[in-house]
């Protein structure tokens, strides 16, 4: 008996402070549009730098030059290139005003938003706040403002973050990433079967989504 195909599930591991995650998000969205079928996206937490203090005193240049020992000129050149690549997908990165911070609370907020059906909106708002608008995304009060902007209850968001209500969900995502062997982000798991690492070109995402749909259709025929 034929059955209507369900949406193809895409699980995405990502961090709010990952420049390639935002660029990869845009490329994935472009690829999904090229694919044209139904896609269900769920974001998962990945902490690139869990030891970063919430109130690191400096921007990305300061962070990389201090923490990685890279010459400032080299960091600036690297960020200039990333900014150019971001521009190509319509994103205006402003690394000069980025507030380098710990993102665990932002990840908790994403899980809170997921519980309210607004995870995708929250993800986009957080990435834009961090890379484009220079907002702080590590402090509860700042995060709650962003949550309220997309329609979440501000007081409820504050209470959830203060109580660490979704910390276990963040850690579960990180553990699942380790189980998959994920070492970098963004990382896309398509239909629980294919793994796609990095900010691939849109066509690569379209191809793997089409492959997943073809296999689904073959199963339906059988």
């Amino acid at each position, binding site marked *: 008996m034929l059955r209507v195909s369900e949406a193809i599930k895409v699980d995405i591991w990502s961090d709010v402070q990952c420049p390639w995650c935002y660029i990869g998000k845009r490329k994935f969205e472009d690829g999904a549009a090229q694919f044209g079928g139904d896609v269900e996206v769920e974001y998962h937490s990945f902490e690139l730098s869990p030891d970063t203090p919430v109130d690191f005193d400096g921007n990305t240049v300061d962070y990389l030059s201090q923490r990685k020992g890279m010459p400032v000129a080299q960091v600036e050149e690297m960020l200039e290139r990333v900014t150019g*690549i971001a521009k190509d997908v319509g994103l205006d990165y402003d690394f000069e005003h980025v507030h380098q911070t710990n993102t665990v609370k932002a990840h908790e907020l994403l899980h809170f938003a997921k519980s309210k059906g607004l995870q995708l909106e929250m993800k986009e708002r957080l990435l834009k706040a961090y890379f484009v608008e220079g907002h702080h995304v590590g402090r509860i009060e700042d995060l709650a403002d962003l949550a309220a902007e997309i329609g979440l209850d501000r007081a409820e968001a504050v209470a959830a973050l203060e109580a660490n209500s979704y910390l276990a969900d963040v850690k579960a995502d990180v553990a699942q990433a380790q189980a998959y062997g994920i070492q970098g982000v963004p990382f896309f798991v398509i239909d629980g079967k294919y793994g796609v690492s990095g900010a691939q070109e849109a066509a690569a995402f379209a191809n793997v989504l089409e492959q997943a749909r073809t296999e689904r259709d073959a199963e339906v025929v059988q």
Partner: protein
Amino acid sequence: MTLATPVNGLLIVGDPAAAACEGDFCAVPGTATSTAVTTPSPRSEQAVVNERLDADLV
């Protein structure tokens, strides 16, 4: 589409050199920084090997 060796239940596809962030650093492909401060993951190396095998380059 490149199909690589299954990694923990996943088939890794796509360009293994696509830009990504590992640890607390995000390398820029094609620059000195991409090789100076990051180490390719075993998965990525395997993907490259498989791609070459697919293309009969080795």
